[in-house]
């Protein structure tokens, strides 16, 4: 049975109309994952040395133990953002005599096979073998290392439950914020040092088996929590008490000035706020407005003169996150009713224009919301302005152009359970090649003349893009129009 289900999964992806696109994305993902894992492994090999360098005079093990909790806090964060939830076609399996528990078990097993679950292993195994086994013997090593491993895996199962349970709710984001503040913030503000508080527990693991047993049990409990939640909710309908009609009749009068395209922008806005998946994207853009805090406060990136190149990345990200994320599935959002647009006069053209309008508006809102970053320096405001112009002048066309390559149908209305195709590592990694664009413009000028010249180049190229908006957007519109038969048939095909 296990292999039958696996085979079905494989067949599904092979036969998908957008196989080439997903294959390329998967290939890229695997490459990045291997690269990062090998970095982690090397970092693990030299962990002892690295600690000696940072913590002069302190015992390496003590230092590591007091830092471990930060590692797990960071793990909590990255798991929240990139750990994917298992997806299965529940409808076509539920009525067969397979048993929900069996389906869910397979789902869970598959979710566990993930590079994220190797990070703790690769990072701490070499150090454990080199240092701890020497000092505390094999038993101490097993107990310490096992505690770490089960801590990490507990987070895995916990996250499966947490993300599904609180996805798209304020509580979820609040918990993540609270974790961030309680962890890093508290130490930074000097309320208490969480690292020192938790350190004795890891120290205890060196000589006693109790922490190992405790974390093993926690891991089992987290697994059961997730497993039971998934089994209980393996139904076709949504879990939540159907969202209130809180978003009804929300539209922007501002869009109406743009005629049919404006109407469709309004329509798209309704689509976004009325579907869980797209709403998550919107909330993420709000969340990423805070992204700058990590970089702009970091002394490592402070320069007396000029601008650290990484700020360009941050600027593009902050002012363009919504179009980068949402735009990646440009037409897929409308896959359920693409025929509707096809059957209207100038429908597809207005649809694309409406989306442009929406992207530009949200980008503008993000830019305005990021103005307070000027507190960290005037140059940051300039970076944001230049990247904003570049985003709306050039990037938006590039993103849409790429997204139009074999768009994949997406079912927005399927019960949200097990349909969490939304935000995963892929959505973030795809950004990396996209980022080549702004740097191609920025770096030559900033290296040859100066950082501000680079910014001006970004801004001017963005403005040229804006002036040439009509022909550039026409390129994308024509691309949709000339491929409309292919696109619409692929949207109709996949059930």
């Amino acid at each position, binding site marked *: 049975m296990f292999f039958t289900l696996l085979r079905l999964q494989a067949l599904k992806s092979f036969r998908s109309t957008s196989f080439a696109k997903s294959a390329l994305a998967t290939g890229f993902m695997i490459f990045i994952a291997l690269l990062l894992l090998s970095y982690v492994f090397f970092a693990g090999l030299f962990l002892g040395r690295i600690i000696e360098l940072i913590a002069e005079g302190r015992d390496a093990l003590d230092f590591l133990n007091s830092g471990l909790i930060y590692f797990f806090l960071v793990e909590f964060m990255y798991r929240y953002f990139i750990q994917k939830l298992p997806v299965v076609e529940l409808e076509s399996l*539920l009525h067969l*005599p*397979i048993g929900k528990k069996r389906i869910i078990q397979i789902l869970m097993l598959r979710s566990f096979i993930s590079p994220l679950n190797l990070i703790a292993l690769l990072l701490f195994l070499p150090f454990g073998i080199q240092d701890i086994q020497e000092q505390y013997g094999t038993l101490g090593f097993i107990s310490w290392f096992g505690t770490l491993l089960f801590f990490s895996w507990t987070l895995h199962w916990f996250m499966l439950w947490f993300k599904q349970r609180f996805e798209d709710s304020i509580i979820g984001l609040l918990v993540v914020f609270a974790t961030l503040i309680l962890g890093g913030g508290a130490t930074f503000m000097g309320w208490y040092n969480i690292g020192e508080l938790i350190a004795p527990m890891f120290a205890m693991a060196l000589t006693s088996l109790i922490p190992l047993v405790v974390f093993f049990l926690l891991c089992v409990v987290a697994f059961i929590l997730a497993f039971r939640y998934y089994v209980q909710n393996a139904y076709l309908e949504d879990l939540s008490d159907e969202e209130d009609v809180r978003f009804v009749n929300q539209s922007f009068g501002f869009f109406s000035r743009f005629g049919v395209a404006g109407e469709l922008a309004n329509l798209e806005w309704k689509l976004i706020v009325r579907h869980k998946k797209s709403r998550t994207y919107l909330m993420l853009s709000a969340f990423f407005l805070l992204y700058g805090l990590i970089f702009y406060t970091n002394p490592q990136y402070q320069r007396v003169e000029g601008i650290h190149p990484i700020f360009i990345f941050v600027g593009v990200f902050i002012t363009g996150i919504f179009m980068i994320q949402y735009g990646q599935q440009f037409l897929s959002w409308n896959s359920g009713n693409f025929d509707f647009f096809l059957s209207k006069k100038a429908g597809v053209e207005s649809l694309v224009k409406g989306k442009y309008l929406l992207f530009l508006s949200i980008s503008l809102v993000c830019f305005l919301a990021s103005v307070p970053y000027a507190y960290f320096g005037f140059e940051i405001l300039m970076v944001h302005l230049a990247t904003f112009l570049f985003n709306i002048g050039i990037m938006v066309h590039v993103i849409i152009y790429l997204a139009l390559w074999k768009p994949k149908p997406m079912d927005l209305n399927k019960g949200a359970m097990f349909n969490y195709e939304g935000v995963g590592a892929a959505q973030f990694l795809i950004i990396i090649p996209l980022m080549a664009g702004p740097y191609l413009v920025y770096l030559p000028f900033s290296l040859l003349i100066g950082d501000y010249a680079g910014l001006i180049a970004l801004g001017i190229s963005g403005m040229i893009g804006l002036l040439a908006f009509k022909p550039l957007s026409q390129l994308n519109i024509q691309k949709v129009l000339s491929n409309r038969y292919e696109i619409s048939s692929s949207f109709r095909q*996949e059930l």
Partner: protein
Amino acid sequence: MIQLSQLKKQYKEAIVLDIPELEISKGECFGLVGNNGAGKTTLFRIILDLVRATSGQVTINGVDVKKDESWKSLVGAYLDEHMLLAYLTADEYFETLRKIYGLSEADLKSHLEKFTELFNDEVLGKKKYIRDLSKGNLKKVGIAAALMGNPEVVMLDEPFENLDPSSQIRLKKLILREKEQSKITFLISSHDLNHVTEICDRIVLLEKGKVIRDLREKSEMMSKLEAYFTG
């Protein structure tokens, strides 16, 4: 065979299904009719445990469908195309089901032979994924799949919809034959009064989630239904 008690489904204020008591006995051909939104598909989904009832329960052979899944091997169903694995060809789909149900290849072959007439050479042996089939052929695949694995109960939602007239007649014959030979309990919802009164020995009429007629007399079924629907 199937017993419903105090069954209720509610979305917010709107009650979409409210059935205090209903029993479907073994070997019965149970027809379900009603206008759009009467709750036919919801009822089927609740029986299949695809959707949760707000209150009440459904038991199949005395087992609560929510608590135990053993009944799934006794029940075959085809409600809509989402129940198919659309990215397989029809042959592959049947082959997959064969493994799931634990049938032998000979079993599958003899099962599919029953459908030769209905399939009309348009389904099997074609290099075409299910998602590319026409709606009528999709339905045929689904019905053949629902009847696999010697089920005791078969539930079909609008089986005649989208079928051409000759396929409709063939399907009717097929259902009658299965009913005769294998004593299968059929649950069929349909808007086609002629077909459903012809094959079913009991017709239940739903209106806004409530059972308002329960007809068992074949001779008067048609006239009573016509009287209701012409209103």
